[in-house]
């Protein structure tokens, strides 16, 4: 092990000794100085996770969160210098974290918070000009083959739990006692200007949006949505996306056959 790898290993593992050959400028104990540095690395990364996953922290309390995050940080130190991206696999870690097993919804709450961060940092995309869709409307026979591209900030989460309500309860929009945890919910994350929004949507809406994201044309996407949710309302769903400025491009799917 070279000295750098040894330093890194000791940084993440408190059981390891202070790396050999460390010197201090003022003659103080290198082990004590290294312990402070090791602690700061860990606590700053835990702070980063706490800033990114505030609702998860509220759900389990600060002490539990910090201890859980410390285990995660030691297993998954950052791979890039962009700390806003740190924690991409924190939800998966939570899912497999035995002490949190009695909060089965916790991982999905983390996934929702991650989608919010991604939305916040996603590229800007100007909403589609309303005229473009008005033009498309003038050729109704081609509407089924219309492709709609959605804003890069858009995120979807299909959860077996009431993630949207749970999240809303932590924004003061609901009380926790009102939340029926086992109600499956779909969350749609959008960015309107600089505001990241979390919306609860019907399963049909989620299917349509997912299909559009996969590049399916409007006709096929609508069919899928109706197959999943017979009460699916395409008009309401599109209005929602339009109002949020979430549709950014449209084009016709002329040559590509559907899978």
């Amino acid at each position: 092990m070279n000295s750098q790898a040894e330093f890194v290993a000791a940084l993440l593992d408190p059981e390891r000794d202070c790396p050999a050959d460390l010197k201090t400028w003022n003659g103080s104990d290198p082990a004590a100085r290294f312990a402070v540095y090791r602690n700061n690395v860990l606590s700053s990364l835990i702070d980063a996770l706490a800033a990114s996953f505030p609702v998860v922290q509220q759900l389990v309390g600060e002490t539990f969160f910090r201890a859980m995050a410390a285990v995660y940080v030691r297993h998954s130190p950052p791979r890039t210098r962009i700390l806003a991206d740190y924690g991409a696999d924190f939800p998966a870690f939570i899912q497999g974290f035995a002490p949190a097993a009695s909060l089965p919804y916790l991982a999905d709450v983390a996934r929702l918070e991650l989608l919010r961060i991604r939305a916040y940092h996603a590229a800007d995309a100007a909403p589609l000009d309303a005229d473009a869709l008005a033009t498309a409307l003038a050729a109704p026979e081609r509407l089924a083959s219309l492709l709609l591209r959605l804003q890069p900030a858009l995120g979807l989460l299909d959860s077996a739990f009431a993630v949207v309500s749970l999240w809303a309860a932590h924004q003061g929009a609901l009380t926790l006692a009102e939340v029926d945890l086992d109600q499956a919910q779909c969350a749609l994350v959008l960015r309107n200007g600089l505001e990241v929004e979390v919306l609860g949507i019907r399963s049909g809406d989620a299917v349509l949006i997912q299909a559009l994201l996969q590049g399916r044309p409007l006709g096929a996407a609508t069919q899928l949505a109706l197959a999943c949710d017979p009460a699916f309302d395409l008009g309401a769903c599109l209005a929602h996306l339009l109002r949020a400025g979430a549709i950014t491009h449209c084009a016709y799917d002329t040559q590509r056959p559907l899978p």
Partner: protein
Amino acid sequence: MNTTASHTVVSAAALALALGAALAISSAPLTAQAADSEKCFGVALQGKNDCAAGPGTTCAGTSKIDYQGNAWKLVPKGTCEQTASPTSPTGFGQLEAFEEVKNS
């Protein structure tokens, strides 16, 4: 010609109706949104750029060494206690299950 269109159950008329309705509902607020916000560079997500929560900065607690231990026994103490749970005897008692985990 798109051959798949002939298999489409959803009629062109239905799509047109839906899109027309969507345009009608949503036409007004589109431009208003753009006008009342402006880009502000250098303003980070709340808590991301100050010392207290600034990832990567070490100005907080330079001498703390309280996270060194990796043996910890904890029960989550957050808002989960107020969260309804049909599987819990009290209807809310998420903390019970964690105690079991701790003792096992």
